[in-house]
């Protein structure tokens, strides 16, 4: 077996990756202890990893090392941050309001103008494009998002969808036609979004299968074949024990 060609940590990593992938996939059969192991490991490792990175990046790099250099600026946000912890001491819990006021005030002040500019003004600017522009290529050029044809489609879509959500008048007659047009636009939008979601999920499946394929070789000590067999045997035993009523849940 040419497993010695791969460094031990890479070999171990491959076995862990294959094992956990198969444990998670085993849920497609039914909920089982192997899936639970994979699920709990994922949660635990994610939290552990986050704590370590936050400790190093935030406390050590941005606070401690700066203080050691004689820069005491980070002490101010540290104090504001610590005020949040006063929530645990009822007598001085009111101090946490200072921290929350800072977070809300700063967050709103930074986010509101930028969000209005980017999400509202820029989008309105693009929606109210002239319907017919001179010398900008063919009106019917569907591949060009700025073509006249697409601008008309955007206009009809925006007006009809907005009208669909306008409930102050009854949707009958011409109003019903406009509202129904809005529904069609919404349905096409949802369809496109769902199509992309399916594509995305399939890509994730392909990614896992590609890894299983990569680690199936001799250089990884046949991780996929060995662990797939082990998973199937474990599930079979678990099923048999369950039918006999001797399984520990």
């Amino acid at each position, binding site marked *: 077996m040419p497993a010695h060609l791969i460094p031990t940590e890479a070999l171990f990593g491959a076995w862990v990756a294959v094992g956990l992938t198969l444990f998670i996939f085993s849920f497609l059969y039914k909920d089982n202890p192997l899936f639970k192991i994979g699920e709990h490991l994922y949660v635990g490792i994610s939290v552990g990893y986050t704590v370590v*990175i936050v400790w190093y990046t935030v406390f050590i790099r941005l606070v401690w090392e700066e203080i050691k250099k004689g820069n005491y600026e980070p002490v101010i946000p540290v104090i504001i941050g610590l005020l949040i912890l006063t929530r645990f001491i009822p007598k001085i819990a009111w101090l946490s309001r200072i921290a929350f006021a800072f977070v809300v005030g700063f967050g709103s002040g930074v986010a509101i103008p*930028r969000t209005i500019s980017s999400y509202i003004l820029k989008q309105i600017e693009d929606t109210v494009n002239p319907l017919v522009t001179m010398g900008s290529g063919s009106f019917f050029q569907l591949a060009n*998002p700025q073509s006249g044809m697409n601008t008309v489609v955007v206009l009809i879509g925006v007006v009809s969808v907005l009208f669909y959500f306008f409930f102050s008048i009854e949707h009958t007659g011409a109003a019903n036609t406009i509202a129904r047009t809005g529904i069609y636009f919404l349905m096409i939008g949802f369809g496109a979004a769902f199509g992309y979601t399916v594509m995305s999920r399939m890509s994730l499946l*392909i990614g896992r299968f*590609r890894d299983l394929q990569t680690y199936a070789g001799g250089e990884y000590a046949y991780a996929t074949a060995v662990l797939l067999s082990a998973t199937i045997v474990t599930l079979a035993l678990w099923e048999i024990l369950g039918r006999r009523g001797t399984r520990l849940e």
Partner: protein
Amino acid sequence: MKAFARRMISIDRRIIFLLIAGATLLPLVRPFGLPIKVSPEVKAVYDYVEELPKGSVFFLSFDFDPSSKPELEPQAVALLRHAFRKNLRVIGMTHWLPGTSLADSIFARVAAEMHKVPGKDYVFLGWSPGGGSLIIAMGQDLYKAFPSDYAKRPTEGMPVLQGVKNLRDVNYLVSLAAGSSGIEMWYVFGKDKYRFEMAGGSTGVIAPGLYPFLRSGQINGLIGGLQGAAEYETLIKQKGTAVAGMDAQSADHMVIIFLVLLCNVFYFVLRNEKGAAV
């Protein structure tokens, strides 16, 4: 026919899982080599990178974690290969804490493949808290936001960052995003304020929501999902995992379309039966 339709409608869903597994696995083992058509939004990103002069500052933000790796890793690899081939100075970072070491490993792997030196040709800054506030801080002073890189080397005086004070000195930025803490955040707090050109690469799930930004010119290009990555790999003429996965993607889509049509036929056959939808 009705009895058959009834039986098929209540088929064990695990059979469908097996069909999808087969449709995924077969093309991976024996690829068909289906052609890949490049879309204008992906070509726009490629063209912009292609036109950047040697030594320009290319910023790649890895705004994803391992759960989006199959879609966004091929995009990152293709973009890095292109940028390194063009001898651009590459700066990388991530807004997604769980993706930090994944981003670092992608960076290190592609840089080693292209014989690029850390600190001289590229730098990976790692993760820092703040999101939008961090972008604003980087727009004011990159070195205060990131006093050291992911490998704990001081950023001040690094050859790759020569002449770079803040985000205004970035020539092109691409955010590879799996959620709103990515392309949208970079646009809202970065491009709109500090006036650099930017594009996005995204998972398929969030791609439809980004098309309004593309149409309005807020981003100049968009690489969407595995398909987008495959298109970029085709453009740089270096096929990778995305092109290899596209046959499986097409096969999966064919199976899904076939099953949806078939299911509708069965429902149509049983349309007058009560409780037909099991």
